[in-house]
């Protein structure tokens, strides 16, 4: 360019709107791009595919004898699967819910089988004390269920907190029956 004219004030006034539009459009496009680019940078810290795969386990209930508890690692924490005795089931069902810290009926803590019935023999729960996360010991404590040695929380045969500092019953994980005897946890 070899024109020697200086800035033409006339041009500026006429092109005012056009000038703003192109800058706004470009700015918006650049911001949108930056946002889209930021998403993978944040998402990559999320659970990877192998972590997610290990986040599901299948358990064959028929392999657990009466009075036995299976302890399996699930998502970094133990899952207790207990084949309860008739006495334990009776104790769990006959508890006066108004007298316990975190009222929950025993059958609310069980999942129905494919045929719609609930089998009270198998209790599936996350074996982590709801106080500070220690693993309670089975067949112990004042309520014949579990006892957490860290700060003396007592759980009953349904895994409900009865005495001690823990605020809530032991958690029931998300599980379904994928056949009559096999459950999938997670």
């Amino acid at each position: 360019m070899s024109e020697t004219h200086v800035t033409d004030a006339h041009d500026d006034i006429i092109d005012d709107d056009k000038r703003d539009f192109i800058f706004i459009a470009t700015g918006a496009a650049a911001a949108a791009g930056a946002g889209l680019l930021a998403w993978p940078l944040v998402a990559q810290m999320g659970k990877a595919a192998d972590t997610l795969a290990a986040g599901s386990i299948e358990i064959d209930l028929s392999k657990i004898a009466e009075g036995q508890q299976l302890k399996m690692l699930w998502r970094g924490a133990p899952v207790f699967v207990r084949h309860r005795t008739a006495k334990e089931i009776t104790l769990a069902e006959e508890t006066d819910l108004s007298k316990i810290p975190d009222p929950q009926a025993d059958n609310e803590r069980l999942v129905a089988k494919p045929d719609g019935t609930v089998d009270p023999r198998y209790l599936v729960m996350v074996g982590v004390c709801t106080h500070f996360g220690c693993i309670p010991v089975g067949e112990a404590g004042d309520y014949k269920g579990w006892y957490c040695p860290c700060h003396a929380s007592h759980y009953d045969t349904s895994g409900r907190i009865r005495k001690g500092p823990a605020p809530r019953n032991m958690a029931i994980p998300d599980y379904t029956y994928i056949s009559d005897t096999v459950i999938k946890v997670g």
Partner: protein
Amino acid sequence: MSGHPSTYEPKYAATKWMDQRLPIVRMGADFMTFPSPRNLNYWYTFGGILTLCLVSQIITGIILAMHYVPHTELAFESVQRIRRDVPFGWLLQPMHAVGASMFFFAVYVHMFRGLYYGSYKAPREVLWIIGCLIYLVMMATGFLGYTLPWGQMSFWGATVITGFFGAVPVVGESLQQWLLGGYAVDNATLNRFFALHYLLPFVIAGLVGVHVWALHHVGQNNPIGITPKTKQDTLSFHPYYTVKDGFAVVVFLLIFAFFLFYQPDALGHADNYIEADALKTPPHIVPEWYFLPFYAILRAVPDKLAGILLMLGAIAVLFVLPWLDTSKVRSMRFRPVAKWFFWIFLFFCFILGWCGAETPDNIAIPFGTNADGTARGLDFTWLSRIATIYYFAYFVLILPILGLVETPKDRPESITKAILGDSHGAAAPAE
């Protein structure tokens, strides 16, 4: 121009308060209004591009470090896990690998721009030397990073480079084993290479800060090499050069994206998809493309120590270039003879890169066939030697001599006059 007086006036109570305590907003504002020569062309956008590359490599690098395991048993597997299982790992790992190549591509353009326009000449010697330091640390970072995937080229490249240190007289073997943490490249080496690879980019970032500080103290050079004399010669960095750099960055990203999405392995080597095997040397060990010219110089001489010294000399000569080039004229635009030697230098740099990739005994330029049917001609060893001789001659003979004997073309009086044309008929920029 020795620095430029700050024109920033804080407008709000908060910014006034800050300005009295730490003038960081002032620094930013001054950066935006920095008077830049009005005739900068697209070769001058690569500084901004390089900043983007550094930021991209650091961000993707830190992310990869969240998933990578620097142990010989697990490194290769961890990279595969990133590519297969980590969310967007298939994007982030190649971004880092391809990004390293793009980083070197940009730095070479940036350096050749400096060579052509005389950006290393007074008062920019220190700016140039800091740039050479950045280049050196980049090369170290790139080498260290390439070992991390623990493929065949990672392992054997590390073996070759650490082997150089063994060539040092007297203390060589001890020095090499100290670097390795053992008798050969092994887990101790990999672990420390990871630590250093994580560290050095921040050293680069610090050097870049000093590089920009030096730049702002003396002001940018420009394609005609004439120092700005009046306010008319310059423009505020923002918006003129922010928008120009922005456009150049997007064009650069298009090239980056092409490689990243459609040819991510084109700039790498297939052998690095084979897990490192200490008992099996690949038939052709080659470094990444950006090291090939130096690899060619290294192999040009048969003696191990001489080759290493020559290779290091090829980098060292850059540091003293401001004193080797005796010309009072900055830009090659006005040095009609030197300009041709520059283009030949660029040509021989490509030749050196080609030689570095090839087997030394292969024929580069065939002249015909021998009696037994094999090709006859100039082999890569000899071609490397010719190119190496020219490389050193350019810096050590040609530039020093030409500066004293060449008659430069007439330079315009000022940038503005160069742009507007001048009634006295001063040369307008031809290209």
